């Protein structure tokens, strides 16, 4: 690690003030991504602003419209939440398969989506359910939030405060994990979302994306068979030692099919 100032923020405004005044200041949530980055000297921030002291940022609540998850809610809390399990069981299921117990007990939804790792799980849930991201400044539709590889719509002094997930009909997430990291090689979230059927894919490309053809097919007939014959092009998909682009494209179909079957 390089040396930096450490500040434990007491409020979202205080944290926003610090990062707003200094482009080289960085927020810290669960630290599961950012601390390894610091330890490997891949980042040299001036100040690290710790959000762990901000009260009330980790709440999880449900009402008739859906579930709201505070940005600092840990993956383990979402996985174990009775509210989430009752309102959107697929979301709790997704959270329960992120990383390992240590990661789930530290990592947060805010940190995960702000980081927007192309292989992260949450982006699929946000896009798959048509969620809304709340920040200290505005609300952003999930479709507009994830803009590219490790890129989001967040500004430098913008802090995720919560994510609202509308209730859905049938929904499920299927993940084919990278054997080494257990992130998603391909993860597909399918849902009869509030605004229609959604199919969101993570892991396969540089950023989460939707598959319109599958959404249309499932809207017409919600069954695994409807998507079994639909494929996506391998063009532009990720390639690494674990999966070729063709393999990823193939897995999108398989995971979509299995997700629909799992959703019932």
């Amino acid at each position: 690690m390089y040396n930096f100032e450490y500040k434990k923020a007491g409020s979202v405004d205080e944290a926003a003030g610090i990062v707003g005044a200094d482009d080289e200041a960085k927020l810290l949530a669960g630290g599961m991504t950012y601390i390894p980055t610091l330890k490997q000297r891949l980042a040299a921030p001036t100040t690290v602003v710790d959000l762990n002291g901000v009260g009330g940022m980790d709440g999880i609540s449900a009402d008739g419209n859906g579930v709201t998850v505070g940005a600092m809610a840990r993956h383990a809390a979402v996985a174990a939440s009775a509210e989430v399990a009752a309102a959107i069981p697929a979301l709790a299921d997704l959270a329960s398969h992120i990383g390992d117990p240590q990661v789930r007990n530290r990592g947060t939804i805010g940190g995960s989506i702000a980081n927007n790792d192309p292989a992260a799980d949450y982006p699929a849930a946000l896009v798959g359910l048509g969620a809304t991201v709340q920040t200290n400044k505005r609300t952003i539709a999930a479709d507009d939030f994830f803009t590219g590889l490790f890129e989001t719509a967040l500004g430098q002094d913008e802090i995720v405060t919560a994510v609202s997930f509308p209730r859905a009909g049938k929904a499920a997430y299927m993940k084919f994990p990278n054997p080494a990291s257990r992130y998603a090689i391909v993860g597909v979230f399918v849902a009869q979302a509030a605004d229609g059927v959604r199919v969101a894919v993570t892991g396969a490309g540089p950023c989460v994306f939707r598959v319109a053809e599958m959404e249309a097919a499932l809207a017409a007939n919600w069954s695994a068979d409807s998507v079994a014959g639909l494929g996506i092009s391998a063009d532009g998909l990720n390639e690494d030692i674990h999966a070729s682009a063709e393999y990823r494209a193939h897995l999108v179909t398989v995971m979509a099919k299995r997700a629909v079957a799992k959703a019932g």
Partner: protein
Amino acid sequence: MTEQGIGAAVARREDRRFVTGQGHYTDDINRRGQTYACFVRSPHAHATLNGVDTAAAGAMPGVRAIFVGEDMAEVGPLICGWAITDVNGEPFRAPPHPALAIGKVNYAGEAVAVVIADTLEQAKDAAAAVEVDYGLLDAVVDPAQATAGGQPQIHEAAPGNLSFEWALGDKAAVDAVFDGAAHVTSLEFANNRLVPNAMEPRACVAEYDAGSGEHTLHIASQNPHVHRLVMSAFHGLAPEHKLRVVAPDVGGGFGSKIFIYAEEVVLTWAASRVRRPIKWTAERSESFLTDAHGRDHVTTAELALDSDGKFLAMRVDTTANMGAYLSTFASAVPTYLYATLLAGQYTTGGIYCNVKAVFTNTVPVDAYRGAGRPEAAYVVERLVEAAAAETGRDPADLRKTNFVPTDAFPYETPVIMQYDCGDFAGSMDQALDLAGYGGFQARKAESKAGGRLRGIGFSSYIEACGVAPSAAAGSLGAGVGLWESANIRFNPTGNVQLFTGCHSHGQGHETAYAQIVADKLGVPYEQVEVIHGDSSKIPFGMGTYGSRSAAVGGSAIVKAADKVIEKGRKIAAHTLEASEDDIEFAGGNFTVKGTDKAMNIAEVAFTAYVPHNYPEGLEPGLDETAFYDPLNFSFPAGTHICEVEVDPETGSVSIERYAAVDDFGVLINPLIVEGQVHGGIGQGVGQAMLEHAVYDGAGQLVSGSYMDYTMPRADDVPSYDVGFNGVPSPLNPLGVKGCGEAGAIAAPAAVMNAVHDALRDVGVGHIEMPATPLRVWQAIQDAAA
């Protein structure tokens, strides 16, 4: 068997310390005035070193010294301790390997300079400021291409990137048998390259006492005396009596901590220059880049059978990747630890093996759990299974047809080994039972109904352990003797300290050795302390690797115990006023034959230290040392049977059942042995399905972190069914054979044979390790196309 003697499943006494965080590892050691080393490492796989500018870095805060290769000219280069004579009778090419690179770097991660500073952060800051002028060269990465024309040349001293070509067996005779054979099975495959991944990374703390002139090196080592010997005799860092090497608790080795690496040589040398203790602990990415890797063979193998399925001959051609330099024992691995095991459990008539050991721009490759024997077992057992499939025979039956029969021991193989004993068919039968072989077809049908492919695979491995009879090893090129030492020291109050030259880094010696002493001398188990790992405390010893600690180290303990009993008999005879011949020893008591006159061993010890009434001429004290040189290797063997299920849609393979029956001779502690079997199989499963050290064409390690290098996890392996079929070895006083490597030797072939069996139904003929989902899916696609 007593409650805590030989054969008792005693829980490991060291585990409480380890699992409660009270172990003492090298990185836990801190000295007053300690400084920290950070190595400047080449980011390039192959480059000339045109200059190293340390001026700016040297002026940075806290920096005590920066050294480059030229500064260490007086220090001897790193050595390979096993000389090979090649097919032309010439010595192998072992190019110089300076601890810090001079003139050229040959793999990514090679140390170019070392910065020593007051804090680790300061050392890292300064290391980043060292300016190195590299002249980039093309890299040689693929071992199969390394000796081809037009490849970049790595070492002047090794033309064509060849260290040696070596062969074992009579080629002409074997060729003739192949010409007349009814069936020939032929395979080509790689044995994938692995990163050892000990839980504790390599680490050292070097100190120099200017007053006494003594150097002390604390190091995560499997063999502290070997470190001391090589650092004295070859690097000239200090005479042996002025160099103390201590290997405290060590968190796993798997071979990777046998070797003498650059870092410990540099630190030991530098500590006397900066006159400060220096610490270095590898970061995980340094471990990936610089620990000696394992395996990495490319092989063509053929098996000739007659029309009854008898194995007539085997022909093997292997290219072994040595990496950029020959590491400490690298040359022995693809030769004497490999080709000599190609007979397997079978009566194969003739065997010929040719090995090319080549240099590439990758980190050196050396012994890794099993070292040569997993590669050999993979060759033999893949061939046998393929032959069974090709000739339409049941794989178990084909093996039984060819097993060395129980009445044929001692059995001389065509590849210079003499097997002492075994019951190969018995282990096979027991394994078939354990695996539920009879129910396999029903399980396969059930899988098929669910859209899955099920396969079963066998591995009837044999290995040579108990490394090694010194004279035999020496005649084959070893630079050291491979005996072991033990010192049993009674204290006046009757408890015992056992000093062993073996080293425990996961094996459970503190428990198992105490059981041997308790058993042999009748001392309560709790009163035996096992001490290892400190060259200033223990007699010279060779350390732990090659599953030698029970067969060689344990036998040394028995020999020392025998000496204790002999001396005790004299003391007891004197005290009990009987003749020595009338004294019997059992259960810790010296008894006058036919009487109830007795003296226990604690009383004898007390008398030895307080010799007021004592045999005339007998030395006081009860403190006996023995050195034991084994008569032969020992030959653990067994059959492992693996059952897998493949999801053809994704290519995922899951291991559904795994049965293992091993002959390790006598078990000192079945609980520890079973743990070793579990761990070994886990590593073998890792090799077969998960682990792969992948370099790209430029020589960059692509799988250089756990994000890409897949370690086996609990959910990757099933609950194993483990059984034993021990035939006591007649060649050592304990009848033991060795169990530390068996799982890693047997499992890759068992798993891969099962994967091949499952995929045969969809027309896949060949798949390489690791059988990742991508590879399995791709193979199914290719077969369908």
